């Protein structure tokens, strides 16, 4: 199904492999298998995004490109134990945090509760991390919530803000300028240099948002990343 790809040099020291299929859970599983195999083959970092893999810091030559093709030609899905981890992300959708929630609901002609339900119902896939340290690119936002980004980005979106932009939803791991519509706040840090894994989320995680009250938000915000990943919010499946 995913045997066809294009392969090209990306500068002097990187090789880009690209698939034509639109992002999907199936493509992501395939890419993850290919990523692991290429990492093993070359002992290099391989970045996975929606439709692409990038092998970094590698000498580009006809030989290495041939080696990539051979590696991709002999992928063995059984070699890989894919992550079955499920992470529940608590979100307080109180208007105090969700500064754009009221307007979004109005524009969509829906109640705030309906918006929250549309956001918390799906099981999302953490396709990959990028943009900022620990920021997840999630697959699975309900089409009814797709919303064009703001024309003028906000100068500062607060760390922990849960937001919608275009076809995507995500959580800001740190204060940052941003053009997404903020609908809530997650009290758990997404990235902490003192946490062994650094990032709360891993690519390939299954993720679901869960609505919490202001009180729950206050008590959860005292939790460290280490405590959180060992709590009932995270199950290793």
């Amino acid at each position, binding site marked *: 199904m995913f045997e066809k790809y294009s392969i*090209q*040099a*990306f*500068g*002097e*020291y*990187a090789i*880009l492999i*690209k698939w034509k299929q639109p*992002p999907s859970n199936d493509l992501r599983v395939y890419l993850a298998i290919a990523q692991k195999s290429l990492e093993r083959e070359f002992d290099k*970092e391989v*970045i*996975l*995004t*929606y*439709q*692409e893999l*990038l092998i*970094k*810091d590698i000498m580009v030559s006809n030989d290495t490109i041939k080696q990539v093709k051979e590696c991709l030609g002999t992928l063995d899905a059984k070699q890989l134990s894919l992550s079955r981890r499920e992470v529940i992300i608590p979100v307080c959708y109180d208007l105090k945090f969700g500064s754009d929630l009221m307007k979004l609901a109005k524009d969509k002609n829906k109640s705030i509760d309906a918006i929250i339900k549309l956001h918390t119902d799906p099981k999302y896939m953490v396709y*990959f*991390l*990028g*943009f*900022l*340290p*620990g*920021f997840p*690119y999630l697959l699975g936002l309900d089409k009814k919530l797709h919303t064009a980004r703001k024309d003028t980005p906000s100068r500062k979106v607060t760390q922990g803000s849960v937001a919608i932009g275009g076809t995507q939803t995500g959580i800001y*791991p*740190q204060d940052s300028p941003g053009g997404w519509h903020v609908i809530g706040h997650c009290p758990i840090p997404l*990235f902490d*240099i003192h946490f062994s894994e*650094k*990032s709360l989320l891993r*690519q390939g995680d299954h993720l679901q948002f869960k609505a919490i009250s202001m009180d729950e938000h206050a008590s959860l915000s005292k939790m460290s990343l280490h405590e959180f990943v060992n709590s009932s919010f995270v199950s290793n499946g």
Partner: protein
Amino acid sequence: MASIEILETGFYTSVQDQGRKGYAIKGVPESGAMDQEAWRLSNLLLHNLDSDAALECTLIGPTIVFLRDLAFVLTGAITSAVLDGTELISNKVYKASKGQILRVGKVLNGCRTYVGFDGGIDTKIILGSRSTFYPITERGIVQKGDVLRTGISNMLSVSSGMVHIKEAKANKSSNINIVQGPEYYYLSQIKREVLTNRSFTIQSWNRMGIALGEPLEQQVAKILTGPVLPGTVQLTPSGHLYILMRDCQVTGGYPRIAQLTQTAINTMAQKKTGDTIRLALE
């Protein structure tokens, strides 16, 4: 051991080395010295380890007091540096005595100067690098009053001027070599010619990227977010070119029309507002 204290920070002074490799899948930028060649030369001249960190100074360098006798060197862009009133030249190892004050001063022919110290700056290694990048490190730049340690010296003995490379090779070339990027084919034949036949002016810059002034005037579709690298040339929705530099994000959604060679990235690191460049396709 405590080796230097920052008396004045200068415009934007950070600690830099080769950068962070292997953490892109967690979304962590590479960082590292903008001009890797100049940074490497500082280590070479001081017999430091390849991975030792130096101070990266931008436009206006810091003022530093030596807390002990220590050798140092200036590489990269030439500055008006003085050590207790004595003018200094680039690429020459000097020995400072305890209490002496180094004023790195204004950058004269580029953008970034590196101050390497015997033994390298010994701040904490985080994710494989000492490069400052907030919030991976506590701060993005050094601050007034910071006391920095240096590592173990590899020099047998040091006297001022014992090592000196004559040619101060701050890269002043305006030729920036590129190769085709993944979305080069998005450009029409005419725009491909414009890309390499006109000069571009640096409009704004920082460690994340450099924006070029003259638009290519071609509207192209966005791409699905994909991997990007330092040196990637993006075509933004306004038609302007944006060159990603060392602190850039690991993924991006604008077409990647070209990629700078490694040498060209180092050359770009010495450019500032108003400088002009020409892109040359290899």
